[in-house]
């Protein structure tokens, strides 16, 4: 009975979404107040029914209702409760429901927190989001209902994919989807502005906090995924240029360009057409991500069970949504005039450089991701594009980008001169180059040029941020007063840029100075790697809730430090019969020790992989800083001040 109610709730949500997608937009076009006023209630109604459906599916999982096919495919009575909850988004249908539910949530949030915006604008934004929602609800209902019944009812379920039975994966999809779906807000603002012909600085100001918030979620989602891959897959890597990883990385790159270009549109009223196009592109890439993952056109470890019908539907969805918005763009954008003029040497130019580099980076990642598909479509054979391609094209693009972070924040809007900039940065730059170039030698006794380059860029970003702060405090009475006077968005920018520096250093050092040894160890034997001795103490058997595990104990010792015992497990998940490796990791700020148990080699000996990964934590530490920066920027006072002014004016 309950699953049918869930299905029914989804149908009602679709009806609400249809109302939301049609009535307010028509009202805004024909200036009918009562139609426009439908927007908020319809958004709430839609969200309510989506919430009911979502809760009912969760109930089916928690109560082990295996008469629901989706539950039977992704859960099991032995599955711990927390994973039964996260199993809701462990497969295609449920994750799509989560997607839709989050979209409803964002729509309601926009309706609630935009009371200070003109009613027509809000109606258009909500209407566009309603149309997006119609598309996804239709996709869910017509091709992928999670509430389908199964007959005969199986005694037990097929269990959740063991890879997904992990806390990192409990959180990764909701975070990532919050990002994907959040970009629909930026998209809706852009389309609403195009429709209303109001593409001005206020539009940019309205959509900035939303875009930044979505970007924060996306950043967290991607880094959670990468962190999970690092400790769960047992390969010691943290990014594999897998098509689905790329699918989340594409909108992130363009989203990053978008938040920078929005800054120019708000502050200088320039780049407006470009910003709108980026907003459309970011959301289009989010949709593309959904298409790539769910249609099976690319092979990936992430791919959901594929059904060609779904692929066709989502491709049509993509074609209609993006096609229509690009058509609106082609129709409306020529009328928009960018008023902010700027000189060749100016902060605008540097931000333009940022945008170009990020979009080109996105383009090259997309090319690498789609190239195998392209060749296959042209009948030229099947190939796969691997990390060598991506590293070769991506790194040269990131080097100038990182360098420009330092210059861009110091450059003046509108017009600056090379002489002044040079004057400002020359000592800082020289000091950064010296310190950065020495760092690899100080830490690792190495003169590797690429490691020096990475370190120089990292130090340069830090040093230029300090310089920026010093220049800003030059005229203030006291240090504390000066620090307090800086806006949150300034601190947000600094934190995010420092995050980039930290991540860059983490990537550089962990890629150049990691050690990896594949060894054969019998109990009692040990292996020395660098300063560490790994002693294989032996194997023991363990019984988990839904798996059996062979656990290896390795004692790691280093002169002058306390020993650490690491456990790596080979688990066999009973229901799916799937073997999994749990790596044993001793984490530290400056290095991770990582052991993964391989295959038994006979005579009690095992293949064991040992890693020493310096600074690998910095990769995720940096992304946390970026996310924190985004949050600070989105919470800047001026977004809220506006609202107070508007409320006062209204009362």
């Amino acid at each position, binding site marked *: 009975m309950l699953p049918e109610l869930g299905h029914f709730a989804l149908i009602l949500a679709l009806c609400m979404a249809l109302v939301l997608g049609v009535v307010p937009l028509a009202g805004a076009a024909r200036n009918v107040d009562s139609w426009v006023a439908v927007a908020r209630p319809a958004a709430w109604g839609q969200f309510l029914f989506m919430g009911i459906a979502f809760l009912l599916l969760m109930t089916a999982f928690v109560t082990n209702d295996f008469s629901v096919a989706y539950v039977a495919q992704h859960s099991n009575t032995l599955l711990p409760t927390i994973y039964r909850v996260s199993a809701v988004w462990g497969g295609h249908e449920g994750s799509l429901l989560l997607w839709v539910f989050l979209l409803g949530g964002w729509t309601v949030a926009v309706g609630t927190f935009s009371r200070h915006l003109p009613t027509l604008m809000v109606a258009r934004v909500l209407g566009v989001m309603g149309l997006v929602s119609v598309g996804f609800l239709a996709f869910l209902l017509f091709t992928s209902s999670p509430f389908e019944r199964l007959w005969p009812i199986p005694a037990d379920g097929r269990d959740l994919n063991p890879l997904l039975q992990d806390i990192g994966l409990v959180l990764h999809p909701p975070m990532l989807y919050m990002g994907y779906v959040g970009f629909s807000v930026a998209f809706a603002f852009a389309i609403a502005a195009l429709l209303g012909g109001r593409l001005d600085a206020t539009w940019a100001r309205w959509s900035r906090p939303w875009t930044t918030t979505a970007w924060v979620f996306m950043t967290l989602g991607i880094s959670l995924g990468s962190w999970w891959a690092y400790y769960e897959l047992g390969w010691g890597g943290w990014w594999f240029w897998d098509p689905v990883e790329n699918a989340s990385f594409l909108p992130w790159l363009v989203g990053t360009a978008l938040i920078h270009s929005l800054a120019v549109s708000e502050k200088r009223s320039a780049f407006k057409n470009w910003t709108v196009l980026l907003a459309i*592109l970011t959301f289009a890439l989010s949709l593309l991500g959904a298409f790539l993952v769910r249609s099976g*056109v690319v092979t990936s470890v992430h791919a959901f069970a594929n059904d060609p019908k779904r692929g066709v539907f989502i491709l049509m969805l993509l074609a209609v949504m993006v096609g229509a918005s690009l*058509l609106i763009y082609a129709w409306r954008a020529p009328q928009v005039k960018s008023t902010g003029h700027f000189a060749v040497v100016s902060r605008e130019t540097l931000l333009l450089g940022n945008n170009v580099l990020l979009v080109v980076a996105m383009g090259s990642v997309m090319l690498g991701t789609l190239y195998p598909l392209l060749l*296959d479509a042209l009948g030229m054979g*099947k190939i796969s594009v691997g990390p060598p391609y991506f590293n070769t094209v991506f790194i040269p693009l990131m080097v100038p980008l990182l360098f420009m972070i330092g210059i861009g924040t110091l450059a003046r809007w509108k017009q600056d001169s090379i002489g002044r900039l040079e004057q400002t940065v020359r000592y800082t730059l020289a000091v950064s180059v010296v310190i950065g170039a020495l760092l690899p030698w100080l830490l690792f006794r190495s003169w590797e040029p690429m490691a020096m380059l990475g370190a120089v860029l990292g130090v340069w970003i830090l040093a230029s941020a300090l310089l920026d702060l010093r220049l800003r405090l030059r005229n203030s009475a006291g240090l504390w007063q000066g620090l307090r006077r800086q806006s949150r968005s300034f601190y947000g920018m600094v934190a995010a840029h420092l995050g980039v520096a930290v991540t860059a250093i983490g990537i550089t050092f962990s890629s150049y100075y990691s050690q990896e040894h594949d060894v054969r160890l019998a109990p009692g034997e040990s292996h020395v790697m660098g300063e560490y001795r790994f002693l294989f103490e032996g194997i023991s058997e363990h019984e988990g809730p839904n798996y059996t595990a062979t656990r290896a104990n390795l004692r790691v010792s280093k002169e002058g430090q306390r020993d650490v015992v690491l456990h790596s497990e080979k688990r066999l998940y009973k229901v799916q019969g799937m073997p999994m490796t749990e790596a044993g990791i001793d984490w530290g700020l400056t290095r991770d020790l990582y052991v993964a148990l391989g295959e038994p*080699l*006979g005579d009690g000996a095992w293949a064991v992989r040992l890693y020493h990964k310096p600074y690998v934590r910095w990769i995720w530490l940096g992304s946390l800083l970026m996310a924190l920066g985004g949050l600070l920027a989105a919470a800047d006072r001026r977004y809220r001040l506006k609202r107070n002014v508007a409320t006062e004016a209204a009362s």
Partner: protein
Amino acid sequence: MKARFLLPLGLFAALVVLFAVGLGLNPREVPSPLIDKQAPTFTLPQLHAPEASFGSRELTQQPVALVNIWASWCVACRQEHPFLMELAQRGDVPIYGLNYKDERADAIAWLKRHGNPYRVSGHDLDGRVGIDWGVYGVPETFVVDGRGVIRYKHIGPITPQVWREKMEPVVRQLQQGGA
């Protein structure tokens, strides 16, 4: 409408066409680079008689043979096993096994429980031969002709449908002496 503002739409339309074509293709059908090449030579101890060997030479004693990579720890193998038994009983084509990264005792016990469709199974304990053959997931099945050339490779469990549509035509053609 100025032309340059239509550019994004045009690019996007081209992408959509690409995807539409892509939907009709199956990326999982990665052809083995070994297709139509000589099967890698190997010699392994036999599973049931470690002192006897099983190797490339045995594969070329008939016009066509199947080489099935299997393991007792592999769930999908159990799924395809009944069908392999059926094929073996029909006796149309000899099936050789390559027992991949498995303990001898486990493998023998598994065959005892589920039946043994293999003429001979080689015991590839450390997976060295599997690597040469480009195995990346168990089960996999190769069609090898009388000259020891790999003619077809199927990844994943063989279902009656896969057999009928993909593998049987290749086998029949080879049995009738076609090249």
